[in-house]
């Protein structure tokens, strides 16, 4: 017997009898002999829970995770606090064993939570509306570019070179197959080169993509960008960090048309890169062009407030090849996680988390500079990450190896031929003791 399969031999016999069949094999008589497998799959035999657990725990134990390292690594995935209630609530099986809420009468839990999520994302980004989630920040950015390409005249997407490389890569893949050009806007002192933007903005451009804070952790000043982009009849797309958004000028304030971003920091674990979630918010004007699920408020037959999937005319199951996107399953449980996270921190908590992150990052930054082994890679304000250049050219990989031996997960190596550079990340989770220890261990490196 298999624990997950209730049918007993007697059940099977009864059901076969009802079907007038004499064997289970007969159920597959319509599979042509030519394509029948006719052998056992070359996989393990069924294992007991104890065996499975031992085997998989052995794999997990081969990794050295941030559970046993002090993490100063960011670059697209962030070690912010994950409030304890999250796991307990998303673990409720009414949430996690449900599927897309096609039947609103028995799905108000998921639907209302998404409605709350949409509200929070819209409020966080300062936009009018948000959808129910995308796969991740990178693909959400690509979808935003696709939206621009589908609705604006032209064949070119501009993307700042200060956007995360993984995001640029995903945007490039999506655009390549749709026949849209991707042109990068160069950087100057770590931020988008405004002159380059001006030079490249023309009638062929459908959208301009920037990131805040950018890949180097720098808080860029995007004042005036929206106006320039709109003059070129293109959409201004901002990829923003959701923790940073509590503190920094919002896409809405900058006049963006679309705000996207990676929602991982909103209570989702690191999980070696996924599942995370992408978020997407827009102005009212773009509302009916948004990809993916959207939940709206309405009433039921008795006039009672109710929530339901809406604006489905945009979606693939109705529009098929004319749909604005092919997304179907999204990252609903991660969006629920983000919703609960933002409810836990609330207005003040999220602001404090962001502010404390900035303060601790700044503390670490000054302490690291004080060692004399680093200088700032860029003279720019930053939020949570900062790039340092190694004085004297010591090798960043070797520095990181030294940190690792001391239980510290160092920053990302972003060196190039010209200089050895390291991108440190400090969140509100890092204690002063941990930051001091990072500095201390670095001091002990054989410079």
């Amino acid at each position, binding site marked *: 017997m298999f624990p997950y399969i209730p049918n007993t031999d007697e059940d*099977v016999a009864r059901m076969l009898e009802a079907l007038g069949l004499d064997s289970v094999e007969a159920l597959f008589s319509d599979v042509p002999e030519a394509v029948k497998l006719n052998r056992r799959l070359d996989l393990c035999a069924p294992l007991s829970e104890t065996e499975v657990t031992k*085997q998989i725990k052995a794999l997990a134990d081969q990794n050295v995770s941030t559970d046993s390292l002090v993490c100063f690594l960011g670059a697209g995935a962030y070690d912010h606090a994950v409030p304890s209630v999250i796991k307990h609530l998303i673990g409720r*099986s009414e949430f996690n064993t449900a599927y897309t809420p096609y039947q609103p009468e028995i799905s108000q*839990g998921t639907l*209302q939570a998404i409605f709350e999520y949409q509200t929070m994302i819209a409020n966080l980004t300062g936009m009018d509306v948000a959808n129910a989630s995308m796969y991740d920040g990178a693909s959400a950015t690509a979808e935003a570019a696709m939206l621009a390409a589908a609705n604006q005249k032209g064949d070119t997407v501009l993307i700042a070179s200060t956007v995360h490389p993984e995001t640029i890569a995903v945007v490039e893949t999506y655009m390549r197959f749709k026949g849209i050009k991707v042109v990068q806007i160069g950087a100057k002192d770590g931020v988008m080169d405004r002159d380059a933007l001006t030079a490249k903005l023309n009638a062929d451009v459908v959208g301009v993509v920037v990131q805040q804070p950018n890949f180097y952790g720098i808080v860029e000043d995007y004042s005036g960008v929206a106006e320039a982009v709109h003059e070129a009849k293109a959409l201004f797309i901002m990829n923003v960090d959701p923790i940073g958004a509590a503190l920094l000028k*919002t896409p809405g304030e900058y006049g963006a048309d679309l705000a996207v971003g990676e929602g991982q920091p909103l209570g989702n674990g690191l999980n070696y890169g996924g599942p995370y979630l992408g978020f997407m918010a827009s102005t009212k004007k773009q509302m009916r062009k948004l990809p993916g699920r959207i939940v709206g408020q309405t*009433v039921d*037959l008795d006039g009672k407030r109710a929530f339901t999937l809406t604006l489905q005319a945009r979606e*693939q199951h109705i529009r098929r090849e004319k749909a604005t996107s092919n997304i179907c399953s999204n990252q609903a449980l991660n969006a629920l996680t983000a919703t609960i996270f933002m409810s836990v921190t609330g207005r003040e908590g999220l602001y404090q988390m962001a502010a404390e992150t900035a303060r601790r990052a700044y503390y670490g930054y000054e302490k690291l500079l004080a060692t004399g082994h680093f200088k700032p890679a860029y003279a720019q304000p930053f939020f949570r990450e900062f790039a340092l250049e190694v004085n004297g050219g010591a090798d960043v990989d070797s520095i990181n190896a030294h940190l690792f031996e001391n239980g510290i997960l160092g920053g990302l190596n972003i060196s190039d031929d010209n200089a050895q550079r390291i991108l440190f990340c400090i969140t509100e989770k890092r204690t002063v003791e941990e930051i001091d220890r990072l500095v201390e261990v670095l001091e002990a490196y054989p410079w």
Partner: protein
Amino acid sequence: NYDQLIFEISKPGRSAYRVAKADVCDKPIESIIPAGLLRETSLELPEVSEPQLVRHYTLLSQKNFGVDTGFYPLGSCTMKYNPKLNEDMAGFSGFAALHPQQKTQQTQGALELMYDLSAMLSEIGGMDAFTLQPAAGAHGELTGLMIMKAYHESRGDQKRTKIIVPDSAHGTNPASANVAGFDIVEIKSTRMGEIDLESLKAALGDDIAGLMLTNPNTLGLFDRNIVEIARLVHEAGGLLYYDGANLNAILGQTRPGDMGFDVVHYNLHKTFSTPHGGGGPGSGPVGVKAFLEPFLPTPVVIKSESSYDLSYDRPLSIGKVKSFYGNFGILVRAYTFILSMGAEGLKRASEMAVLNASYIQEKLKDHYQVFANTKCKHEFVLAGLKGELTQCSTLDVAKRLLDYGYHPPTIYFPLIVPNAIMIEPTESESLETLDDFIDIMIKISEEADTNPEALKQAPTTTPIRRVDEIRAARTPILKWEPTPATSEEA
């Protein structure tokens, strides 16, 4: 019946969270980040205490139906049981706290798991290589189609700009083809939902990049002409794409690779038991035959003698479709399922999924309209209520099932079946549940004649009754706004 939004239980000054303030760096934020770069508008998030918050989401959850609370025969979605062990395995801190930017020397266990899982998925599907990067089924379709396009282009075959999609296909198929930059050629299906060979022949040509197919198809029927179809497409220079949404029907019985498919995607959240999460996260790995391997997204997990690594140096690769390596946490769950089931268990799962569907079909065929009365696989499709003059619709049947405590089947899909009711029981259900469901379905078919109002008014036992969809779409309310009264109070 709880009916508040989290914003409506919010009150200024409440908080469910404490952020520790370090006693270093007391600088005002403006001295770290210039004031001009800071947020000016207020941040409208709820302010609640933890007890309120936990009660809120606990009570919300109770308004949901899940596999753990009842039978969920939603056709094409494979709502099988989600083993709790999967969750525990994904929760090991060695996985859950692993940072995607860590050096591969620190992530050997994760890489080994991905490498092994790819190999298992290859064996299951008769494919040669897999990417685990796509986040969902549709994402896998898109990835697979990009691979097909990149393949043709790499051979200088630029004119293959079209994808053939049968009219019975899942909506994601044509949508994905469109997103991948293809034009779509829709061909008719036979009455059984099978590919019409003549239509296929007529559509094939040197502008065809490939054919997307689900087998068993969306009617739950195995397309017996699959070998001939593969031959025709390949002869015309096209590739075959397998939509793995229905893979749960054939585990250990037959394999897409053996049928002639060049590219496949699986839905780990369907066939491999990872929870659907209210709509995701899923995972849609894509498998290919060896000649397409160079086109897989980067990075690819490779194995050397003593270790695993991530290879980015793949000049023909389509690039990346997602950050990092895919929905890794979902991969752990699927891996756990495969180890738990083993070769024998996977085969048994498909056998029981097919047996359960066949049994329900047999018992219901005299009570509902039958579209294609033939052997089904893991699901089957009814064509609505009998009696041409019935006042009740398929929607009414679905809503009435809610009153009896069941999640309704998929309805009005596939499009080629009028009033479709698409039932997929999966292998997770007991005969007792099937029998009870059958009884209720028969009872509803009788009610449709004797008491149609019971169907048309249904549901009446759920937290809300039928909703006004039109109002939702016409005057969209997509976020909560404080009412003026509330504003004043605050």
